[in-house]
């Protein structure tokens, strides 16, 4: 196979070459393995997202026989995705969830994907690394908890995954300084405005880091700057596991079983080991036996599935004898401030993720709260822009006028690190879904440190825009990026899995997704989730998981 590409092509992942230049769907589905339901596979992965697919690809190359169960469809971007904001609905997880607490978190398009590729099919595409400090916030800042692993345990994994996505951006000066495999993308006028405004306030920004090809990368085309990244990239320019890891995984014997909703992980009460998973496909219940199970369903669904998997040994849910499953779910404070300028900005062009700053990432005691935030450009399409306008209470004539004015606006958003709290948790509601499974209920409330962080970050955005001489601003308070719920830790009393992702008390059950994060940093989470899956795979040398 002829391998053209940039200097830093990935080593053990042929995915970009297994795609086609002109057709976006996977090309090797006819070669995909099919395992019999009576056959015990080596590993059953639940959820074909950032964690699940990366893990499967790695282990398949080591000879593991793997099935991935995925609730949603196996997407063909040519056939299934549209260049339309409302029409992107099918790629969001829109089954009902109950939300509560003093600061309830909106679900659906805001934070959860469904279908093969997981939430990254519609993520924005920012892929910054966590900082070394993120792994030790208890020791450094006296808040939350330290991770049981350090940045240096993940560094090689970050680098590997960055080559596979691949990541484009300027040299990164924050955290552990590093370079990216692809050069930065050209930026649009709207992002240039933010850059200049920030600079005038003494705030440094950098282009990227985004998981969007900028140059030849196997058979993945260059970005065409059409701006629909959050609606699913029809070009295959923006990374998602559907195109970055699944093609290679299939080539190495992974079966992805789409439209299959896992409803219970089954435990053999005698041995204390999980025996496989019950799932629903086409309205029928099936059982797939497996030597080991990795739950990779994202921060809400992973705890929900474990809580629904009760047995004699685990009457309150699998791996939940310390009452930790579903706790410490986090979101980042993602307030956005839009600014108005005389010239046309036309935010709908170029990818929404363009330039960002991590200058406020670390704790600064003079700010009066622990930890910090990052600042990034975003660009809402019309329906999302209407949310900005209505958030300030406008309707009728005022709504229409602010909407007509859209092309004069540009938007900055922050990601504030919020604290893990035990009562911010997922539980099972009385309501049942179409599979007869109780729906998740998610309660979320801010603490004082969270409020102080969000207020400060909002003020910084306002300052940037007044530095740029904006004529008007609009603010919307919102939240992004669900993580936590099955956190990794050093003791069974205070966590669900250990530093090798293994559930305390269940030797062949693993959790490998965003739900294991003990703290969330102020960086977007997809890269660290993939890096964790990469590291976990390197820990499992052999098929022997016991």
């Amino acid at each position: 196979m002829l391998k053209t590409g940039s200097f830093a092509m990935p080593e053990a992942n042929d995915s970009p070459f297994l795609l086609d230049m002109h057709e976006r769907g996977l090309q090797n589905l006819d070669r995909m393995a099919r395992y019999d339901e009576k056959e015990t596979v080596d590993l059953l992965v639940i959820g074909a997202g950032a964690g699940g697919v990366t893990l499967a690809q790695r282990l398949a190359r080591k000879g593991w026989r793997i099935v991935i169960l995925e609730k949603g469809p196996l997407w063909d971007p040519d056939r299934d995705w549209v260049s339309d904001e409302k029409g992107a609905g099918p790629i969001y997880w829109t089954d009902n969830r109950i939300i509560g607490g003093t600061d309830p978190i909106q679900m659906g398009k805001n934070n959860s994907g469904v279908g093969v590729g997981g939430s990254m099919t519609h993520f924005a595409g920012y892929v910054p690394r966590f900082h070394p400090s993120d792994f030790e916030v208890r020791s450094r800042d006296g808040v939350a908890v330290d991770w049981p692993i350090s940045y240096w345990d993940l560094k090689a994994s970050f680098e590997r995954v960055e080559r596979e996505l691949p990541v484009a951006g300027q040299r990164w000066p924050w955290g552990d300084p590093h370079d990216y495999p692809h050069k930065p993308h050209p930026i649009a006028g709207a992002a240039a405005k933010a850059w200049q405004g920030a600079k005038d306030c003494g705030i440094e920004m950098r282009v990227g880091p985004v998981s969007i090809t900028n140059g030849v990368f196997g058979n993945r085309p260059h970005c065409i700057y059409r701006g629909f990244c959050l609606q699913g990239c029809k070009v295959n320019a923006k990374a998602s596991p559907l195109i970055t890891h699944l093609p290679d995984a299939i080539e190495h014997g992974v079966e992805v079983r789409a439209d299959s909703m896992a409803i219970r992980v089954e435990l053999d009460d005698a041995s204390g080991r999980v025996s496989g998973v019950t799932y629903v496909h086409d309205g029928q219940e099936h059982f797939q036996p497996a030597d080991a199970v990795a739950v990779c369903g994202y921060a809400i669904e992973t705890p929900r599935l474990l809580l629904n998997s009760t047995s004699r040994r685990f009457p309150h849910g699998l791996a939940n004898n310390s009452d930790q499953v579903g706790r410490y779910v986090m979101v980042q404070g993602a307030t956005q401030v839009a600014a108005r300028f005389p010239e046309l900005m036309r935010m709908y062009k170029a990818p929404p993720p363009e330039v960002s700053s991590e200058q406020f990432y670390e704790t600064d005691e003079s700010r009066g709260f622990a930890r910090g935030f990052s600042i990034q450009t975003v660009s809402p399409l019309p329906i999302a822009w209407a949310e900005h306008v209505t958030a300030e209470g406008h309707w009728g004539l005022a709504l229409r006028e602010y909407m007509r004015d859209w092309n004069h606006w540009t938007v900055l958003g922050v990601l504030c690190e919020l604290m893990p709290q035990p009562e911010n948790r997922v539980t099972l509601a009385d309501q049942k879904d179409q599979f007869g499974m109780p729906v998740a209920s998610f309660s979320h409330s801010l603490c004082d440190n969270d409020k102080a962080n969000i207020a400060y970050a909002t003020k910084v955005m306002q300052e940037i825009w007044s530095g740029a001489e904006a004529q008007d601003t609009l603010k919307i308070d919102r939240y992004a990026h669900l993580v936590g719920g099955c956190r990794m830790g050093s003791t069974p009393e205070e966590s669900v899995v250990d530093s090798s992702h293994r559930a305390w008390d269940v030797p062949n059950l693993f959790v490998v997704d965003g739900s294991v994060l003990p703290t969330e940093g102020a960086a977007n989470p997809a890269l660290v989730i993939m890096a964790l899956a990469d590291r976990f795979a390197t820990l499992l040398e052999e098929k022997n998981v016991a």
Partner: protein
Amino acid sequence: MKPFQDAEHLPSRGTWDPSQLPRQRKGKTPQMHGRYPDYDVLAEVDHWDDVTRKLVVGRVENVPPYRFFGEREVPTLEAFCDCLTAQDDEPRIPVLAYVDEKLFENDGDGYQYFDMPTDQETWRTVARGLDDEAAKLGRDSFAVLVAHEQHEVVHRFDQGELYGGAWATFNVSRAWSIVVRYVCEAFYAHPWAWNEIGFGGPAYPRGYAAFGSPQLGEEEHWEAKEAVDVDAMQDTQRKGLD
């Protein structure tokens, strides 16, 4: 300065009267006014991929029939949607028809507040509540109130200041946020609204080469041009378009 370069027309500075806007000369906008009088996004359909074209053109041409709302609810909620989106004249984007479709198909947004019923139940309750307000004014339906009365009720809804009857069964402010979300999604998914605001619309496979910086070029030749003058009559005459 071009009329839209300054910000004096923004609602934060006062009220803006859309009758002063340029009239649409090409394509349609809701009520035929907008900022981009010679822009019709639907003239670009040949540049869209097939799947997207079918969906978006279908949205305009095949307005879904009412299947969720009943005879009494339709006029009440149509009037309410018109009020929220300031649609006081034809052509109107048939907002409620899309809301009806979404509710009928149970195509929800993926969450329900702990203190709210389902979105379906929320919409029905809002319809009942609006008619209750009309009854307090001695009228049979919200739809037959005069414009300023409708506005007054909607204003109180926005402020969370509607009490008793239907309104007592849920959190009124949350109900407002839910119906506003449905209405805005329906309205701004419609190409007529894109004409009004100058949105490029679907952009695959064409993409953009000029995305708004001096180095890259400001805009594509086909993109919406903002009116240089609010007086469309003068502009038309000046360009010799009459």
